[in-house]
């Protein structure tokens, strides 16, 4: 009997020894032991940049808005917002495919997922506002100047120049609980007209209700209006108005506050994309341009003197890799937004350098 007890004790000791040994031996495995969990929130002093480099993948939040982000039949993510995620991944990790897309984050939770560290970057047509500035996130340079407009029917006597007052007494389809709804009500109050809202759960339902005649008007950002209009069957009947938007919607990527290293990377990915367009650096000619830079600034960005990039924690040719993978800002725009009817020349989204009212402007790279 006694030796059986001894055996049991030995067994216990063996088990404990095995455990403690493995604990002391390799801390990495104990971390991995929390299966299906990711140690998300940044540890004190650690930048998101380090985490991304460590994980080898960028976690990027996107929406599902035609032209901005969508999933193709093959399961690929495409779109304007998506390409900014890819640009960041290409610059940081050297691989535009090293992105994990978080689709379907409700609009109400998108800030929270950034502050809690669930995603590294939010590229989801998010408007820069005063109150959001205060909620633990920061904004990259604006990548798209948008504004809210209405969409109505030509058969109702609406033209592209109709003022807001033309919709007095009409009904408007709008997704419930959104800033779009609030903007509409404020604008209606301002114009001194009364409108009735028909609220739906999301914008897709709103557009569906609108086209079916459940309401006389539909409202959303001008970009979304354009993409919906382009996709609707009887394109000519739909009119986007008024001439100028009744709200300002500067859209920009969002990242966690107080993480300057990571913030710098995102900011300069956006800036570099704009500078490359200004300088005519495209995906096709990037290698030639790197060999014979048109300006010293572009040369520095393409890795000529790589100190600025390496000081940021990136490789010297990070932006060269990036532009080869995604093209410059103009290429991204033309690839995704021009086909859905969002013409660029002459709009706020044109380059400032073109002098046609464009607002896109990047600080110098030096």
């Amino acid at each position, binding site marked *: 009997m006694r030796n*059986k007890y001894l*055996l*049991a004790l030995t*067994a*216990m000791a*063996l*088990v*404990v*020894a*095995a*455990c*403690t040994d*493995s*604990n002391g*031996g*390799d801390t990495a*495995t*104990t*971390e*991995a*032991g*929390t*299966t*299906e*969990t*990711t*140690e*998300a*929130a940044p540890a004190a002093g650690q930048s998101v940049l380090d985490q991304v480099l460590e994980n080898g993948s960028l976690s990027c939040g996107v929406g*599902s*808005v*035609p*032209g901005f982000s*969508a*999933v*193709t*039949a*093959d*399961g690929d993510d495409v*779109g304007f917002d998506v390409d900014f995620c890819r640009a960041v991944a290409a610059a940081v990790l050297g691989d535009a495919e090293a992105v*994990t*897309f*978080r*689709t*379907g*984050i409700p609009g109400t*939770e998108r800030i929270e997922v950034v502050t*809690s*560290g669930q995603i590294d970057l939010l590229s989801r047509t998010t408007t820069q506002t005063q109150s959001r500035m205060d909620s633990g996130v920061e904004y990259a340079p604006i990548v798209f100047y948008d504004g809210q407009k209405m969409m109505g029917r030509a058969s109702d006597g609406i033209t592209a120049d109709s003022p807001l007052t033309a919709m007095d007494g009409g009904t408007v389809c709008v997704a419930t609980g959104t800033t779009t709804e609030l903007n509409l009500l404020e604008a209606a109050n301002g114009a001194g007209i009364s409108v009735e809202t028909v609220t739906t759960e*999301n914008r*897709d339902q709103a*557009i*569906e209700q609108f086209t079916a005649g459940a309401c006389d008007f539909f409202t959303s950002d001008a970009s979304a209006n354009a*993409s919906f209009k*382009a*996709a609707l069957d009887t394109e000519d009947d739909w009119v986007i108005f008024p001439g100028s938007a009744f709200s300002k919607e500067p859209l920009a990527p969002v990242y966690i506050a107080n993480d300057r290293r990571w913030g710098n990377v995102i900011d300069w990915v956006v800036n570099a994309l704009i500078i490359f367009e200004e300088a005519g650096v495209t995906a096709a000619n990037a290698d030639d341009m790197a060999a014979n830079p048109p300006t010293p600034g572009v040369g520095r960005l393409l890795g000529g003197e790589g100190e600025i990039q390496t000081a940021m924690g990136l490789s010297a040719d990070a932006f060269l890799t990036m532009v080869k993978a995604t093209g410059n800002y103009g290429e991204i725009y033309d*690839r*995704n937004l021009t*086909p*859905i009817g969002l013409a660029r020349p002459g709009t706020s989204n044109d380059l400032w350098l073109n002098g046609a009212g464009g607002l896109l402007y990047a600080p110098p790279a030096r």
Partner: protein
Amino acid sequence: MTSLGPTESVLDAERESPPQKVAIGAFDWMRKHLFSSVFNTTLTVIALLIAVFVTRGIAGFIFGDRPKWGSVTENMRLYMTFGYPPEQIFRVWLSVGIVFALFGLTLAAWGGGNRVSANRLASSVTKLGGTLVALALVTGPFPILWDDAPLSLRAEIIMVVIGFALGGLAMFHKARTEEQPERTISRTGILAGSVVFFIAFIWLLQVPTPMLDADGVYSEPLAPLATTTTWPWTLMAVIMMVFFLLGGVFVDRRGEERLRSVLVASWLFSYPLIVFVILRAPDIDWNQFWTRDIWIVLGFVVGGGLLLLLVADPERPERGRILSLGTVVLAIAMFWPLSIGGLPRNLMIVTAIYMLVAPSFAAKGAMKRTLANWVAVVLIASFFMIAMDTEMILQISKESFLGGLALTIILALGALGLAFPLAILVALGRQSRMPIFRQLSIGYVELIRGVPLIVWLIMAIGLFGFFVPTGVELDKVIRVLVAFTIFWAAYLAENIRGGLQAVGKGQTEAAEALGMTAFQTTTLIVLPQALRLVIPPIVGQVITSFKDTSLVAIVGVFELLNIAIRSIPAQTVPTSNFTFIGTVSENLLFVAMVYWVFTYTMSRSSLRLEEKLGVGKR
């Protein structure tokens, strides 16, 4: 259709002209079942009008000009697996193949030798033919009643001809076999026929395929399925048939019971194998495996085995109890204060559970089997733990590696599998004579069932982060899995409680009189009887659960429904060369059909299962 008693003797004289017999039968049948009175006739007319109206409405939509069915056919891969990499799609087929192989074996093990009455088959075929003819007449053009019809005249004629051919075939068979009505067809024959039919069907099937011409005008010409679809499905059908035959051979040699027990284990084993190993494609670090993991596993196998010898010693139950409690304490201690993670802790949990349960089943002669089971449990558990505790080989750009129908199925099965043991515990607690257990169980069940599932899901997504330590972040799919598990466990518990109540008190008393412990009484006497009684309500709950998975669409998980209403309507020109904005109705019809096929099949099979088990007839 059915031969009616009084006319039979008359008909016997006229054997030479079978069609006439049918005509009389059908007329009689109609008079009896449709036009027996004025009231009945009115009802028939009203029902007929509604049926025609609804069918034509649906057919009118399906075959009309408005819908873009390309949104369904083009996005089939998205519907099935969402973001699974196309170059790794063989993993999906492998999984489907395993399921089909097991399915074939299951068919062989449960009633492989059964024979189906040929007459029953014939009447099914007749019904099929009748339905086809009715559908064609209602949806096709009809000279006087309606000219514009959803179906073309050609299609109508083809359907009517096929329908009558099927009906005629069945009747011909029936007439020929009048003398030996007991004629049967083997299950193998029917299955082989179905497989051939299925393969022919998918190779001949033409689906609308989206096209954009040079001017960008959208059209949907019919085209055969891609070979990347047809070949794998052909293979799957063949695999099922082959394994059905193999199963038959096995049954002949070793008997059904053996195959059944192997199959139950295989089905259970296949779930983690498919989800965590095949689909998830773990990148196992073999170096670490050989230098570290293997020794931990061996340590547990040997150490646990030795411990088991002591724990399961029926001579000294007290010592066993104390030792097994010791393993529990050790397992808890590994969370805190030792905070050892990974493989050792998880294996320790397995050990503790095993040690708690083992003594109740230990007997003098069974030691060898208990030990063998232990080794198997540790090896299998560590295999999955090591596999799960790794990176993926797959390059997936989505939040979770699964989506679409695959996620729907895996979510439903996983949560139900986890909920079931919990539900048994809660049901037992609710029936327990111990007041605290009972009150806790009642509180759990009432709290969970009182609040709608969607509220729990919103909380799982939006509030989960607040109730776990800062920094722990669980995958969205895992969170809804937890929510489903907790929710369904409450419902399952109520079902199981019904069964527990139905088991006679005499059973418990008899077991106690035999000297069984409370644990043994419950697990060996009460539960098996109770669970058998509640199979129908549990199948009902499984169906409900399967449908309930659609709710995760509201919280942004991309299963079937969310893809239909959110992903596909966002596809535009630059993304897929087609625009599918505004195709919600089409997508919803497709999704509804998928759900319907699954749930209807389940409810039908549960009816068959009930008949087979004789539930409610004992």
